[in-house]
């Protein structure tokens, strides 16, 4: 069925659509020039307090969280290949209960951002992060996540994911080996194990 568009090929102006999208990106870029502080307080936190009841409840909840951490699939560039490799049989992320890569952020707890983030993509990364339910954790994979990597100074690349969202663990490497990614996942596990339900989960 043909849609009546008065002889035009499209019923909208794609030039107008383009410029409106550009305004969204430029506004996002202008609003995201200061990095979010790294939520690294857990590094110095004591393992668990001495209260018997709270300790037990915390331990059970944390155990259930870190033993079934579901990542959202967010592969942007070459790091995604290493992430897939980590999920495949040789390195086997299923050993940590993390093999369920979700296509929807609403079903995931861990955001593994694998690859180079451009400013054009950044608003949608932020949207995926906002759609994830609390508690949630963020893993920035590769040199691009730390600083922009080899693309630092480019007109189009975000120099560090912490300009867009708070990052729990950075993995160096270009791209990192699967072992490095697994090590970072274990760091996230350690962080979750130190979490207390009286604290706001994930964001401390």
């Amino acid at each position, binding site marked *: 069925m043909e849609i009546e568009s008065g002889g035009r090929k499209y019923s909208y102006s794609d030039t107008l659509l383009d410029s409106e999208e550009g305004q969204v990106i430029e506004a996002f870029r202008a609003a995201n020039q200061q990095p979010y502080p790294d939520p690294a307080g857990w590094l110095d936190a004591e393992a668990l307090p001495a209260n018997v009841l709270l300790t037990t409840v915390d331990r059970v909840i944390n155990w259930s969280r870190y033993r079934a951490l579901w990542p959202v699939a967010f592969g942007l560039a070459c790091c995604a290949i290493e992430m897939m490799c980590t999920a495949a049989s040789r390195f086997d992320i299923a050993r940590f209960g993390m093999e369920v890569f979700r296509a929807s952020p609403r079903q995931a707890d861990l955001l593994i951002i694998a690859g180079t983030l451009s400013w054009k993509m950044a608003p949608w990364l932020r949207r995926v992060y906002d759609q994830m339910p609390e508690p949630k954790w963020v893993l920035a994979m590769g040199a691009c996540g730390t600083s922009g990597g080899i693309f630092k100074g480019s*007109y189009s690349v975000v120099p560090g994911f912490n300009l867009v969202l708070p990052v729990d663990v950075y993995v160096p490497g270009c791209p990192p080996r699967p072992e490095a990614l697994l090590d970072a996942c274990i760091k996230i596990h350690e962080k979750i194990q130190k979490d207390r339900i009286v604290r706001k989960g994930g964001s401390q």
Partner: protein
Amino acid sequence: MTAALSAPDLAARLEKEFPGAIVESNADSLVVDSVKLPDIASFLKNTPELDFDYLTNLTAVDYKEHFELVYHLLSISRNHSLTLKTRCYDRENPTVPSLVALWNAADLQEREVYDLFGIVFSGHPNMKRIFLWEGFPGYPLRKDFGDGV
């Protein structure tokens, strides 16, 4: 293995067809006058023993005093290739004839060159930006774009 055609030999032949159109020819490439570019490209495509039926790649280089456009041509039937170049000395309003009428592959690649270098391809059916949005300030692959930090 695809054989690269000898640009000086081809230049000698093109010089007879298009006097004064060859700017330079060396072992790597054939540089032609941009005004004669569509005629020469059409000749390269439609002459049976040359038969360049495939444009594999189209890009541009900013040499500060001029832009250089690079066309990588290939003949699938003859299994030979040629690097064709042309130059554009105008930085304010750089314009080069479009080759979309000859090779459809030029469509998106010419838009990319326009997007990143600001070179306008006259005769292109849809000359607008492709990766960046309408209203992006400047052309990022020009050498004078700024450090971008």
